[in-house]
């Protein structure tokens, strides 16, 4: 799909809002993210789960109305579990993720702007170099394609969405 000038402008506008919200949530700060990973401060999980509940209901309603298409990413255990674990180790060492590091740069945090950006670019470039050796091997181990939870459970998507949203709201209520 060709990228138009209006795509780029919308990307910038949505990014400004996303960065603004992340900063107001406090999740562009190292201390808040490390506090979450040490299970002392649950701000990150509160932001993420509130976003997921709100987003989930909205995008599936819009899909039902035929307004949007949802394209879940394909994956595999080798890709998502192993890659996720590597990501997690880096997440705690850096103290920012690829989105919040951008917010941290806007905050004036130089560990993010200099160390973080350099590291992420290095790691992303390295993966591109070794990719041909992974793509036919571990990245396809235990593949499940673009499976969704309702497909996995063989039920209507609202049978998953309604209980899942209630569960997430309960978790949010119980979190300190």
């Amino acid at each position, binding site marked *: 799909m060709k990228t138009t000038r209006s795509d780029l402008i919308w990307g910038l506008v949505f990014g400004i809002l996303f*960065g603004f919200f992340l900063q107001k949530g406090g999740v562009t700060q190292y201390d808040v993210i490390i506090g979450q990973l040490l299970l002392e401060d649950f701000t990150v999980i509160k932001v993420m789960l509130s976003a997921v509940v709100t987003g989930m209901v*909205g995008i599936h309603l819009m899909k039902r109305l035929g307004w949007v298409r949802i394209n879940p*990413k394909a*994956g595999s255990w080798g890709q998502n579990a192993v*890659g996720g674990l*590597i990501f997690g180790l880096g*997440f705690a060492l850096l103290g920012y993720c690829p989105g919040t590091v951008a917010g941290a740069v806007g*905050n004036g945090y130089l*560990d993010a702007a200099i160390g973080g950006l350099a*590291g992420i670019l290095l790691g992303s470039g390295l993966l591109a170099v070794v990719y041909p050796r992974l793509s036919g091997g571990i990245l396809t181990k235990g593949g499940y394609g673009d499976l969704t939870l309702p497909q996995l459970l063989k039920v209507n998507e609202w049978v998953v969405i309604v209980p899942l949203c209630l569960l997430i709201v309960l978790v949010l209520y119980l979190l300190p």
Partner: protein
Amino acid sequence: MNWLTSPRWSPYAVGIAIGVLSWFTLLISQKPLGCSTTFARTAGMIEKMIRGDKVLLRPYYQKTKPVIDWQWMLVVGMVIGSFIATVLSGSFSLQWVPARWATAFGDAAIPRLLVAVLGGALLGFGARWADGCTSGHGISGTMQLAVSGWISAIFFFIGGIIMASILYGWLA
């Protein structure tokens, strides 16, 4: 307009705002929120500047072209948006070492920067291995009910909790 200048909002309010934002990115741009592909594209642009067009032959860059796209502008916007938020609340300041790190490991910039580079490298490598990050899998994938999103998100936190415990539990 106190909310514009307030340094912190309720995490639930911020989450709901990001959730609503995700409706509009899908509706207007047909794109879910995500960030880490941008770093792969940028790494490709930098390698192309150094080594020339043969970089484009890498299978990874055939699939993920080193070009400026919607998400690339999203990430640029995030720097600007966060900057605006921090200026409005009067909390902008240049800082080398975060407070929590300084308490545990001292306020020297070099050790913090070295660990940030190492952490960033694992983060970038892992994000591209998993094909997504805390936004693309952790928020967008999970709300789409994608199995790939839920598994990734769970393992992001497993890895993060393990490394944070090593760092602050044993090494600090």
